[in-house]
């Protein structure tokens, strides 16, 4: 496909939203609010992928990173009774800035020297699918009639990623499961089924 020129106005608006929401997500003491800010941040990053000419990545970002991840994070916040969070110590903000700011400066030095094409080339869905699900070196005829040679060919890695997700799912159940207890006890509400108040205060 032909290179195209992304709109700078859209980029700066999306980048501003993403950075502001990321700052809110790492500084807000209310973790439910931080999870919501994380959702907005990841949602706006889908726009960045769209601007880069990778619509499948934008859709994936909306489905997984902007949809499933913040919801799971809110589950975590509520199940571990951690609605509010503080700094590790009064000094840790200074330590964090001392580590993050030099890294940011060094990154900017390198980023300003990055070389690439003048404009991004969009990636069609059909080509991405063929690259993902074929073997390297295979030839394929696209629906447009042109013939392409597969460069990526990550069908084996695709299967491995599927197994990794399955193992993570089963592993999460095994780690979190406590046999022989009621549902409320599974989430840590001891004494709840005897009519007592939960002994655990918010952490």
């Amino acid at each position, binding site marked *: 496909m032909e290179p195209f020129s992304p709109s700078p106005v859209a980029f700066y608006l999306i980048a501003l939203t993403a950075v502001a929401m990321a700052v809110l997500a*790492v500084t807000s003491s209310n973790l439910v609010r931080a999870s919501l800010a994380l959702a907005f941040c990841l949602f706006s990053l889908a726009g960045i992928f769209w601007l880069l000419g990778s619509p499948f*990545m934008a859709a994936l970002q909306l489905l997984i990173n902007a949809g499933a991840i913040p919801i799971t994070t809110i589950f975590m916040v509520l199940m571990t009774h951690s609605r509010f969070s503080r700094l*590790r110590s009064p000094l840790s903000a200074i330590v964090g800035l001392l580590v993050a700011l030099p890294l940011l400066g060094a990154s900017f030095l390198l980023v300003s020297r990055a070389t690439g094409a003048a404009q991004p080339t969009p990636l069609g869905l059909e080509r991405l699918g063929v690259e993902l699900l074929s073997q390297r070196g295979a030839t394929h005829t696209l629906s447009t009639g042109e013939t392409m040679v597969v460069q990526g060919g990550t069908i084996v890695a695709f299967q491995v990623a599927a197994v990794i997700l399955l193992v993570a799912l089963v592993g999460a159940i095994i780690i979190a499961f406590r046999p022989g207890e009621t549902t409320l006890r599974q989430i840590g509400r001891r004494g709840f089924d005897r009519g007592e108040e939960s002994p655990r205060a918010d952490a």
Partner: protein
Amino acid sequence: MLTLSHFLALAAVLFAIGLYGALTRRNLVAVLISVDIMLNAVLINLVAFARFTDNVQGDLLALYVVAVIAAKVAIGLALFLNVFRHNGRATVEVLSRMKQ
């Protein structure tokens, strides 16, 4: 006119924000949120390099990184739940006591 450097600069800013959060937050879920932001900065880098050099392997790697992010969040939920059950709270101090 947007160049590769614009996208890489955005990713660098997001990575630094995430690193600051991962170093300063006390609650484990808040640390996980910060790590999520860092991983998404890496995703931007991968896709930006892939699209500005028209190399499809960066996009493929980004897809696998998304799968790893999903697995990380699922395992993190289970682990933090266990930490909370054993200690009554899920903070980094609880985990640093494990080495004693």
